[in-house]
């Protein structure tokens, strides 16, 4: 998580620059024996990563901001300066507004559906049951597939009269069959189901790792005190899973805001933009219509949305986690 690194590093920098608030931390003193060596070491170790970060993250963001002020078809010189017109067009355009809503629906559904499902399955797979490793492997398998492969597989499965329809018909659920990818009111939810299938394994593995951090002694103590299995889960395990859950929400929301590959391959954002996301809208305008200036403006908006969410979430939600032991590990 680059965001975590940068904000923590920035906080450190502020602290040392004004120097007025040592807060129990040893201030960095210049001209210390070995200071030069330490600086050299830092430069050597940090430079490659810093260069990559500058060259492949910060510079492109800056360049995109620059492009976004122009009406530019991607070829030739930038000479049609339009100011904030591209931003205005995007924000005022109904398709982009719908795209944002679609992203928010996916993010909301992720938290409402994927999270409880992940927690439930993780708790189940944390028990001593027969074939546990195999089951863990099975739930994690979809996550290993690339998003493009997932999309192609599901595209075939969801074809009219395809595997899903056949299975439903043989189960006597023929009446529930819909045009999964062609019905404008359903397609977004179809895509959400596929996304869930693909990413549930990641949530489960993350939560299983979190569950390893729950000391067995606490469960024992709770059991001795007569707590039921549900009470132990509710009052001991879940609170201790808190940091993991909060990180999962963070990753999931950011992922939902940027979802692209799967949608693009399965529906191209259609029909009639009913499954368009901010990223498919960006590619559709930037690359397919050769509106690179406008596409850059949309990219910058997408960046702002994600960045704002990341900052707010760090500040108000993740802080209690990062203030504690995690700060020392991460920072």
């Amino acid at each position, binding site marked *: 998580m680059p965001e975590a690194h940068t904000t923590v590093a920035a906080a450190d920098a502020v602290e040392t620059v004004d120097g007025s608030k040592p807060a129990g931390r040893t201030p960095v003193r210049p001209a210390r024996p070995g200071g030069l060596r330490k600086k050299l070491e830092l430069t050597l170790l940090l430079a490659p990563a810093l260069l990559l970060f500058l060259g492949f993250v910060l510079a492109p963001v800056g*360049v995109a901001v620059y492009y976004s002020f122009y009406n530019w078809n991607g070829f030739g010189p930038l000479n049609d300066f339009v100011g904030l017109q591209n931003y205005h067009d995007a924000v005022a355009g109904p398709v982009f507004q719908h795209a944002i809503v679609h992203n928010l629906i996916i993010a909301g559904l992720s938290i409402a559906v994927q999270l409880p499902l992940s927690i439930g399955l993780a708790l189940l797979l944390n028990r001593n049951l027969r074939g546990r490793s195999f089951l863990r492997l099975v739930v994690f398998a979809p996550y290993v597939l690339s998003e493009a492969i997932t999309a192609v597989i599901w595209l075939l499965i969801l074809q009219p009269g395809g595997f899903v329809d056949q299975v439903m018909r043989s189960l006597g659920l023929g009446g529930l069959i819909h045009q999964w990818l062609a019905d404008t009111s359903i397609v977004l939810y179809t895509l959400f189901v596929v996304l869930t299938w693909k990413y549930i394994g990641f949530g489960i593995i993350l939560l299983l790792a979190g569950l390893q951090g729950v000391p067995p002694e606490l469960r024992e103590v709770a059991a001795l005190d007569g707590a039921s299995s549900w009470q132990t889960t509710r009052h001991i395990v879940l609170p201790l899973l808190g940091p993991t859950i909060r990180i999962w929400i963070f990753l999931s929301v950011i992922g939902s805001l940027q979802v692209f590959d799967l949608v693009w391959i399965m529906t191209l954002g259609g029909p009639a933009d009913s499954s368009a996301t901010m990223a498919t809208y960006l590619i559709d305008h930037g690359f397919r219509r050769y509106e690179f200036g406008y596409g850059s403006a949309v990219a910058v908006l997408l960046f702002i949305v994600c960045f704002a969410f990341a900052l707010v979430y760090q500040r108000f939600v993740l802080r209690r986690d990062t203030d504690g032991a995690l700060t020392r590990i991460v920072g």
Partner: protein
Amino acid sequence: MRRIRTSAAVALAAMVAFTAACSSSGGSSPAASATGPVTLTWWHNGTTDPVKTLWQQTADAYHAAHPNVSFTIDPIQNEQFTTKIPLALQGSTPPDVYQQWGGGQLTSQITSGKLMDLTSSVSSWISELGATAAGWQAGGKQYGIPYDQHVVGFWYRKDLFAQAGITAPPTTMDEFNADVAKLKAAKLVPVAIGSKDRWPDAFYWDYFAVRECSTDTLKQASTSLKLDDPCWTRAGNDLKAFLATSPFQTGFLGTPAQQGAGSSAGMIASGKAAMELQGDWELSTMTGLVSNTDFKSKLGWFPFPAVTGGAGDPSVALGGGDGYSCTTKATAACVDFLKYLASTDVQKKVAADGVGLPVNPAADSALTDPTLQTVSAYSSKASYIQMYFDIAFPTAVGQALDTAVADFFAGTGTPAKIIQSVTNSASGGK
């Protein structure tokens, strides 16, 4: 990790754009000599046979005759070109030869300064290709050479038509609608369409416009981008009436046009639908999708039916062509290679393999497939071939049209809104 991969891709794209901006000042003329050994990087859309093999053989043959020229061939899926080409032309290492559909897209790409002006090198022989080559010109200069020409029309299954009791293909929209009803009554899917890709939808609107508008109006529209003649609205109304007959397969909004056996082309090849409005490339597309080529003998072709009361000349066809452009990075060998592609030898193979209609009339005789012979006969008699509007218009406008028509197919929008989105995009709106 959705997040990391997407941001990396965006970053990479931006970097490519960035380097392009830095390096685009040095646009050079093609290297004069073709004597030294050169390797031409060739991007074409022949990802399936017969096109793939044909181009491989063509490159091998050219290399055998010109040992100094070798090829790096990169077949790219058709839908990928729209995204790959802008990036490549912004970068410092574009391909030497790449797929070029001409029209407004060509004009957009010329602004990159990376397209080779072929005018003087081809002036001696370009007239052999007839009027088709004009689609690859901009401002009186030749920026690409077509290797085939295309005509859009209805591909149909004779066996399924017979099954529904249809004796002759329809010639008017009224007959067409009656046939759709007959096919439905015979529990067949009347028309297949690949609406997921949007451009197949636009073919219908395009053709209704071609039938409703006079040839002069059509010609003016491609340059003025103004659709204020009432015939354009009538085209939308015709489309609306046609859609009301619900002629398409279930879930057509999610069907791709050319990818996989479940695509609209695959449905015709496997006899799951009776007809499809597609270009003459349909035959080679279908050959790549199914292993059994029995369907070829069952195919027929008829032109888009006449529309009663339309001002359009009924012999005008919708079409276009495939061609190649050389980039400024390429040597003179590139132009010579394009000339070779347009030569009678290669053109005969293009015709014989059913890749498309040869652009060189001398090769017409090599068309072996009877259906393609029908298409070729129709196209040679056409009074004018209107290039598909999404290609004829500048890219942004063309794509806006495709999207608006696709929305209309999906049940949103009005005939007026289609025109409005074209006008809006032409004036710089998003």
